[in-house]
């Protein structure tokens, strides 16, 4: 009877809040308030019945309270982020158009026009996926991490077995692997309170995508996955997600990582073509047609670029910067549009990344935090690798310059991830990590039969 009065009051408040995700959290707070008020009145000498009546009376009109709260709690997209994404996309489009305009033919298989058309089509498909991801309940990543992990793994295995080999490398595994850090965030989330065992299971989980990167073989992807997953795992340990001592937790992560890193370095230095490729890279022979020709090309273009004004002419031999739409777009832009264009692009990306970090740090649920962190990391790592390569530090082959360089699957995957990021920023404040919600207790039936036991729900307590 007593709870009925409070329940119907709370029901009325909740009904006024149109956005369902906001209802439980808001109603729970009001419920706590009534309980506190009731207890205070009982301390003043009122019996429970009268205290409840008085408390409800003092609360005011539930419809008015609900309506006022409804005005505050409406899902709003993060406009700044959305405008930044659209701005970078438009910039990419303009750059691709410039490439099409200045170069009639890029390769034998694809004309500059078809590249430009495909770029536009990818943006359309990507934007549709961004919108879908924006409206997706991002908590499914935390609810079904193993399923997502296995699906991505199967896709990767399929590509390994059937994918096209380009220069001895399976390129197609890159795209599912770009989604792995986000899936890994969900996986780490599911290891709550599992202690050191949880951290070790996460480490084993990481070996799945890492093995795909090794099998592909794609060292850039391996580096990308290592850094991304380390960031996610480190953040979880420092946030106390595994309920272990922070120092020991970090040691469990970094000691094996350091050993693996040293072993890999030893493997590279001791034998094989990788050692040769590194020594070529370090030799800096500066001969345009030499073994280190690509780095030389990049450095040549950069050295001819000007702060203001188009780059000074390069002699005929030096005019062959390859893959300007994809891998070396930024070098091409710096050369043709001056260093100031480079500064502008860096500024745009930095703004997006910094805003992303600020908003992800504000997330109240660890799931929202981990997913947004994973997307930002995926985005940032692509930028860092791409920019380094385009500045001549070509230890790795580049991935993409997100939303700008040509690459249909890159564009689609990146836009999908950004949609998920926007979804976190839209609804993240209303997510809770605890599996049992206090407010939902009132919805439980009085007597419940479950797994051979009878549960009697008395207010918020359950007696078996």
């Amino acid at each position: 009877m007593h709870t009925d009065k409070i329940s119907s009051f709370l029901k009325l408040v909740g009904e006024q809040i149109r956005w369902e995700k906001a209802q439980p959290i808001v109603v729970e707070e009001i419920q706590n308030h009534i309980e506190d008020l009731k207890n205070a009145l009982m301390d003043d000498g009122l019996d429970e019945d009268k205290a409840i009546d008085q408390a409800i009376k003092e609360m005011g009109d539930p419809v008015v309270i609900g309506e006022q709260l409804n005005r505050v709690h409406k899902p709003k997209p993060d406009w700044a982020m959305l405008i930044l994404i659209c701005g970078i996309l438009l910039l990419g489009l303009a750059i691709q158009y410039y490439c099409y305009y200045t170069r009639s033919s890029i390769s034998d298989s694809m004309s500059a026009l078809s590249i430009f058309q495909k770029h536009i089509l990818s943006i359309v498909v990507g934007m549709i996926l961004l919108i879908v991801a924006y409206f997706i309940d991002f908590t499914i990543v935390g609810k079904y991490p193993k399923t997502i992990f296995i699906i991505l793994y199967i896709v990767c295995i399929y590509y390994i077995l059937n994918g096209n080999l380009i220069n001895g490398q399976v390129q197609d595994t890159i795209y599912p692997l770009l989604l792995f850090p986000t899936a890994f965030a969900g996986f780490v989330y599911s290891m709550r309170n599992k202690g050191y065992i949880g951290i070790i299971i996460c480490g084993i989980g990481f070996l799945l995508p890492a093995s795909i990167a090794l099998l592909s073989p794609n060292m850039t992807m391996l580096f990308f996955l290592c850094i991304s997953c380390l960031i996610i795992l480190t953040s979880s340990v420092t946030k106390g997600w595994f309920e272990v001592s922070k120092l020991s937790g970090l040691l469990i992560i970094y000691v094996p990582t350091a050993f693996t890193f040293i072993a890999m370095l030893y493997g590279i230095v001791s034998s094989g073509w990788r050692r040769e490729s590194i020594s070529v890279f370090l030799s800096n022979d500066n001969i345009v047609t030499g073994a280190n020709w690509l780095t030389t090309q990049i450095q040549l273009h950069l050295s001819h670029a000007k702060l203001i004004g188009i780059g000074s002419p390069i002699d005929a031999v030096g005019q062959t910067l390859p893959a300007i739409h994809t891998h070396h777009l930024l070098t091409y832009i710096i050369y043709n549009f001056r260093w100031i264009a480079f500064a502008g692009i860096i500024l745009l990306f930095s703004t997006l990344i910094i805003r992303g970090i600020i908003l992800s740090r504000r997330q109240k649920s660890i799931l929202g935090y981990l997913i947004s962190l994973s997307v930002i990391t995926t985005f940032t790592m692509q930028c860092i690798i791409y920019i380094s390569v385009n500045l001549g530090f070509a230890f790795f082959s580049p991935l993409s310059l997100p939303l700008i360089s040509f690459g249909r699957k890159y564009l689609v995957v990146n836009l999908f991830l950004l949609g998920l990021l926007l979804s976190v920023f839209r609804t993240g404040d209303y997510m809770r990590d605890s599996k049992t919600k206090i407010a939902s207790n009132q919805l439980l039936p009085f007597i419940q039969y479950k797994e051979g036991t009878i549960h009697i729900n008395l207010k918020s307590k359950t007696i078996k």
Partner: protein
Amino acid sequence: MAVDKNLLSGSTTMLLLKLLERGDMYGYQMIAELKNRSKNVFELKAGTLYPLLHAMEKKGFVTSYDKAADNNRVRKYYSITKEGLQALQDKKNEWNTYASAINRILGGVNCAY
């Protein structure tokens, strides 16, 4: 003494921020504290408090976190942010300008010539 609600409406944000400047609090605690410290003059209703608090949180003036209380309950505590402290300072300045102007007109103790 009953006070016209209109007098209070513009300055509730300032009063709540002032309370939170001293330490983190949950909603009911704020109402009780405000009532107590104003000697029963300010009796804020839950219907005014929560929309205001939630709007302040959206603006970044306060931030909230859950903390376990007795009886398996989880309480939502509010904490003032840097932006909130700045907003409090602005509101205080605004209030002082307003109060001294009113006093000048009413010719009270702080009457300026």
